[in-house]
């Protein structure tokens, strides 16, 4: 089974709306990273939130981390069509590989 998992599997919103993607992980982590992958491209990091942090912001993006429930969320406000992509969470632990979830496919329509 996956050590990191996003939900929902897919969602669609209208431009301008806000959206939240959730992530659950199963191991002790040093950090949780969020990546975005647009069609035809490799993933690109959006936010890294360390295990001693509870919230991190990057422009219209806001990530939260709850180590007690082993969960994280990524919220996007004022969505744009160019936010259409697959969003991954990836868990980091010391001396271990980065583990990606299966991704949430977000579609932002006009």
């Amino acid at each position, binding site marked *: 089974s*996956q050590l990191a998992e996003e939900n929902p599997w897919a969602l669609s919103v209208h431009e301008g709306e806000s959206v939240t993607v959730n992530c659950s992980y199963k191991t002790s982590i*040093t*950090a949780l*990273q969020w990546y975005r*992958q647009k069609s*035809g*491209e*490799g*993933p*690109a*990091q959006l936010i*890294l939130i*360390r295990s001693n942090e509870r919230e991190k912001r990057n422009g219209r993006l806001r990530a939260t981390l709850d180590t007690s429930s082993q969960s994280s969320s990524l919220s996007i406000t004022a969505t744009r069509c160019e936010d259409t992509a*697959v969003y*991954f969470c990836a868990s*980091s*632990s*010391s*001396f*271990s*590989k*980065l583990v*990606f979830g*299966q*991704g949430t*496919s977000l579609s932002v329509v006009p």
Partner: protein
Amino acid sequence: ETAVFQTPNYHVTQVGNEVSFNCKQTLGHDTMYWYKQDSKKLLKIMFSYNNKQLIVNETVPRRFSPQSSDKAHLNLRIKSVEPEDSAVYLCASSSRDPHNYAEQFFGPGTRLTVL
């Protein structure tokens, strides 16, 4: 331009053939990776290579082998491809960080189709 570069973009081949994919990074990183991304977008690490030390994911079949000439290049060779090898192969690099805080930078991927 500093980035991760992969060639080719696409490759179509037949079962049993050998293929090689190239990856080069100009970011000055000392760790490189190969990932396999299946049709459901699931990303699985295959190899990581740091300072000539290779770490292999034990689930990777032996027909896959990474090849590195220096820390900026990490190629992937597949001997005798099989239909289940059809996927997108993504190369990535990062600086070395034992706590895994380091961001991984990905190339655009090579899409392999095995007929």
